[in-house]
C-alpha cells in the first residue's frame, strides 16, 4: 500500500518553505543595513547618506560614511557571518549544541593575549633589553598580534585535545571551559598589576566593539571569512553525514578525522581574526545556529546560509540597540550580545526539544 501523500511533492514544498525563510531574512538585511548607516553620532538624512556614498562633494559627509559608517556595517556583516558559521560547524563536528567560539575559550585566550600585549607595551620603556625586539611595533599592532597568537594557541590546544580524544568529543567543551577560566585568571592577574591606564585599556578591549576596525583590517577579515565560508559550504553534505555518526559518515566516503581537524582549524582561525579586531562578541556563535536550526532544521544546505544571515542581523541589531538604548551613551555591541546570551543559554538547557527539533 502506498502512502496518500507523494513524498516527492511534499519534499518540494518543504524545501520551498526553507527557501522562503532564507529569502525573508536576506531581505531583512537591507533595511537593517540602511538603519545602521543612518545611525551614529552625526545626524545624516538618507539623502545625505546617498550623497556621501556616491558623490565626492561634501567632505565631512563622505568621511563619516566611508570611514565610520561603512566600515562598521561591513564589520558587522563579516563578524556576524564568521562567528555564526564557526559556531554552526563547531557544533556539527564536535556533536555538541553548546560548541561555539566563546564556549571553547578562544575569545578568552584572545582577551588574555590582548591584556598581555597591553602590559608588555607598557613595560617596553622600563625593560628595553627584555622587550627590545618589540620596540619597532606600534602599541595597537602589538596588542592585536598578542591577541591573535593566544587565540590560535587556545585553538591549538583544543584541536590537540580533540585529536587525542577521538571518542570523547563531548568533553572538549569542558576542556574549553577549563581553558577559558585559566585565561580569565591570567587576565585578572595582569589587571591586578597594571596601572590605571593599562587597566582601562584591558577592560575596554574585552568589550566587543564594531567601531574598532578600519579598512585594512576589514580586508583581512573579509579574506578569511570568504575562505572559511567557501570551505564550510563545500562540506555542507559532509556535516550532514556526520549527524548520522562517525562510522556511517566514513562509510559514506567522508574522511571524518580530516574533516574535523580542518573544520576546527578554519573555524577557530575565522573566530580568532574577528575577536582580534573587534574584541569579544559573546554568544553570536551560539545563538545564530540555534535560531536557524529552529527555523529550517538540521540540513546544513539551509542551516549554514540562514545561520550566517542571522549572525549578521543579530550583530547589526546589537550594534543599533547599543547606540539607541542609553543614547547619548553608545554601548558596544558585545555587551548587548552577551545580554542576549543568557536567556538563550537557559532556553537551550530547559527548552531543548523546542529549540532543536527538525522542523
Amino acid at each position: 500500500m502506498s502512502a496518500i501523500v507523494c513524498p516527492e511533492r511534499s519534499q518540494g514544498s518543504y524545501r520551498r518553505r526553507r527557501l522562503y525563510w532564507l529569502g525573508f531574512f536576506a531581505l531583512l538585511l537591507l533595511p537593517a543595513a540602511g538603519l545602521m548607516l543612518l545611525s551614529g553620532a552625526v545626524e545624516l538624512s538618507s539623502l545625505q547618506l546617498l550623497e556621501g556614498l556616491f558623490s565626492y562633494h561634501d567632505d565631512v559627509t563622505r568621511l563619516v560614511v566611508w570611514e565610520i559608517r561603512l566600515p562598521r556595517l561591513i564589520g558587522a556583516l563579516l563578524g556576524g557571518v564568521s562567528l555564526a558559521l564557526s559556531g554552526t560547524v563547531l557544533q556539527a563536528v564536535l556533536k555538541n549544541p553548546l560548541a561555539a567560539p566563546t564556549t571553547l575559550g578562544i575569545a578568552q585566550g584572545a582577551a588574555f593575549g590582548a591584556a598581555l600585549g597591553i602590559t608588555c607595551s607598557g613595560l617596553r620603556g622600563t625593560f628595553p633589553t627584555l622587550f627590545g625586539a618589540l620596540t619597532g611595533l606600534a602599541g595597537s599592532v602589538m596588542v592585536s598580534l598578542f591577541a591573535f597568537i593566544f587565540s590560535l594557541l587556545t585553538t591549538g590546544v583544543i584541536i590537540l585535545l580533540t585529536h587525542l580524544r577521538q571518542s570523547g568529543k563531548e568533553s572538549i567543551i569542558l576542556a574549553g571551559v577549563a581553558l577559558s577560566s585559566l585565561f580569565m585568571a591570567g587576565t585578572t592577574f595582569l589587571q591586578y598589576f597594571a596601572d590605571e591606564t593599562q587597566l582601562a585599556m584591558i577592560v575596554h578591549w574585552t568589550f566587543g566593539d564594531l567601531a574598532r576596525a578600519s579598512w585594512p583590517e576589514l580586508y583581512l577579515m573579509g579574506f578569511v571569512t570568504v575562505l572559511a565560508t567557501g570551505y564550510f559550504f563545500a562540506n555542507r553534505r559532509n556535516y550532514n553525514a556526520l549527524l548520522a555518526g562517525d562510522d556511517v559518515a566514513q562509510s559514506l566516503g567522508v574522511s571524518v578525522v580530516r574533516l574535523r581537524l580542518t573544520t576546527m582549524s578554519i573555524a577557530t582561525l575565522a573566530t580568532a581574526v574577528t575577536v582580534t579586531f573587534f574584541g569579544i562578541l559573546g554568544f553570536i556563535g551560539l545563538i545564530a545556529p540555534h535560531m536557524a536550526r529552529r527555523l529550517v532544521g538540521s540540513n546544513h544546505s539551509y542551516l549554514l546560509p540562514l545561520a550566517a544571515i542571522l549572525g549578521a542581523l543579530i550583530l547589526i541589531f546589537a550594534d543599533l540597540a547599543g547606540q539607541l538604548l542609553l543614547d547619548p551613551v553608545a554601548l558596544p555591541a558585545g555587551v548587548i550580545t552577551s545580554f542576549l546570551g543568557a536567556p538563550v543559554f537557559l532556553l537551550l538547557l530547559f527548552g531543548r526539544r523546542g529549540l532543536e527539533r527538525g522542523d
Partner: protein
Amino acid sequence: MGIEFKQLSFAYGGQQVLDKISCRLRPGCVHVVLGINGAGKSTLIKLLAGFLKPGEGSVLLGNKPLKDLTLHQRAQRIAYVPQQQQTSYLLVFDYLLLGRKPHRYWQSGRADDALVCAMLERLDLSHLAQRALSQLSGGELQKIALARAFVQEPKVLLLDEPTSSLDLKNQLEVMEMIALETSAKNLTTIITVHDVNLALRFAESFVLMKDRKILAFGDLEVMSPEHLSQLYGLPLRMYRQGNCLQVVPENNL
C-alpha cells in the same frame, strides 16, 4: 561482487581479537555471523567496512584489495549500518539522500529525489519522509537506516546487529527487507545476529566464530546441534517445525 578475507588478524592494543581467519562470501546471499559476545563479530564487520586496518592479512572486494580503494570508491561499493543509530533533527528524506552522496560529487539532483521516493514507497515508509529522525520509534529508525543503505546502491551490505533492539514483528520485517533487497540486487550481505532462530529463518550461509577463529562456515549443514552447542558453550537441541528449524537450550544446563 563477493567479498573474501585471507589470514585476517586484528588486535586491540595487545588483545588479539581475530587470529588468521579466512573465508569467501559469495554474492546474492545473506551471510550471518554468529558467536557469543566478544567473539569479534563487530570487529570483523568493521574490518570489512575498512574502518579498522587489519594487523595481518587482507580483505578482497571482488578481485581488488580493499586497502587499494579510496574512501570514495569504498563508499560506492560498501554500505554499512551500525548497531546503534544516531538520532538527529535531520529529516528522514534528507537522511536518505545521504545515501546518494557517494554517487554525487557536488549536490544531489532530481533523479536522487525520485530514487529516495521510490525506495520509501517500496518499503511502505512514505509517511515518515518529513519527520525528523529523533521523532521515529526504534523500529522505524532501523528501517530508515536500512533504506539509507539501500539507496546507496552498494554491492556489499554490512549490518551490525540490525535486529538487536527490535520487537518480534519489527525483527521479522527488517530481516525480510534485508533478504528481499539482497536477492533483488544480488548483494553480498553480511549480518551479525544474536538470535539463532532468526538467522536460521533468513540466512543461507553461516559463519560461526569462537575464540578468535572461525569454528565453521558454510550452508545450512554447518548449523548442527554439535557446532551450535560448542559455539555457545551450552547443550542445544534442534527441532524442525514445518519449514523452520528451531534451536532451544536443553532443559537442564
